[in-house]
């Protein structure tokens, strides 16, 4: 499977020779394959995604049922912030 790097890479790698671009493509593909093989967690990851979607859905439904109560959505608040690099 082609990852994002291969798609983005061929658009932006003006400084590398064509041979180097192909070699980098090969390297990236193998690196992804190795990671996928070493850490096979797709099902576990999907469970986490399903739970998160369900949790979000229930919060939305809860908010619709009682519009006066502010739902707790910490991730929603976190997203636009830049990482704090000060520590």
């Amino acid at each position: 499977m082609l990852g994002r790097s291969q798609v983005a890479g061929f658009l932006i790698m003006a400084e590398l020779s064509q041979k180097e671009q192909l070699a980098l493509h090969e390297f990236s593909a193998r690196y992804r394959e190795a990671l996928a093989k070493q850490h096979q967690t797709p099902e576990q990851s999907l469970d986490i995604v399903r739970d998160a979607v369900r949790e979000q859905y229930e919060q939305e439904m809860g908010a619709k049922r009682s519009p006066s109560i502010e739902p707790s959505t910490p991730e929603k608040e976190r997203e636009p912030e830049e990482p704090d690099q000060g520590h």
Partner: protein
Amino acid sequence: MDDLIKIVRTYRLTVGLTERIRLAEEIFRHIEPDLRVFVFSSVTHDAAKDALQEVLKAVAVSLKQFKGDTHKEFWGWCYRIARNKLSDHFRQQYAERVQPLPPDELWQIMESTAQAKPISPGVRHDLEHIIKLLTATKPDCSDLLWKHYVIGLDYAEIAEERKLSYDNARMKIGRCLDEAKSLVS
């Protein structure tokens, strides 16, 4: 890849839980491999598995709030969430992983794929060159080259991460590549 943004848009408009879960699964099948590479390149491997779960959860919870309309905006948004999550919850491991993987470890990773996909002498030679390029410079430069050429972050995304201007990020990566090439040749 255009399919991805179509699915994200559909997800945004979907009300029913079952359909939302189906779409979210589809979205995550698209993005998990690249977020995995990003996370495993950003924190120590010991922490990466937990960190990846946290990042996926954070993206899933916020998916409805994504406001963009392009593939590029979506990926920028995903990486922003990932960076926030890693710097908040895995601060120590985030800092420790500034050191790039050494060449011998990268070779072991390449070798681990050889059974499924044998490495010919020509490919071996080319991979050796790439590993040298990616590891020849100082850690900061190697990190930039890795993020740009292996993870696939573009100049704008690296500029955002490093708090640089677009042109500064582009020039810095260009200088790092020049330096790597001069050290390798």
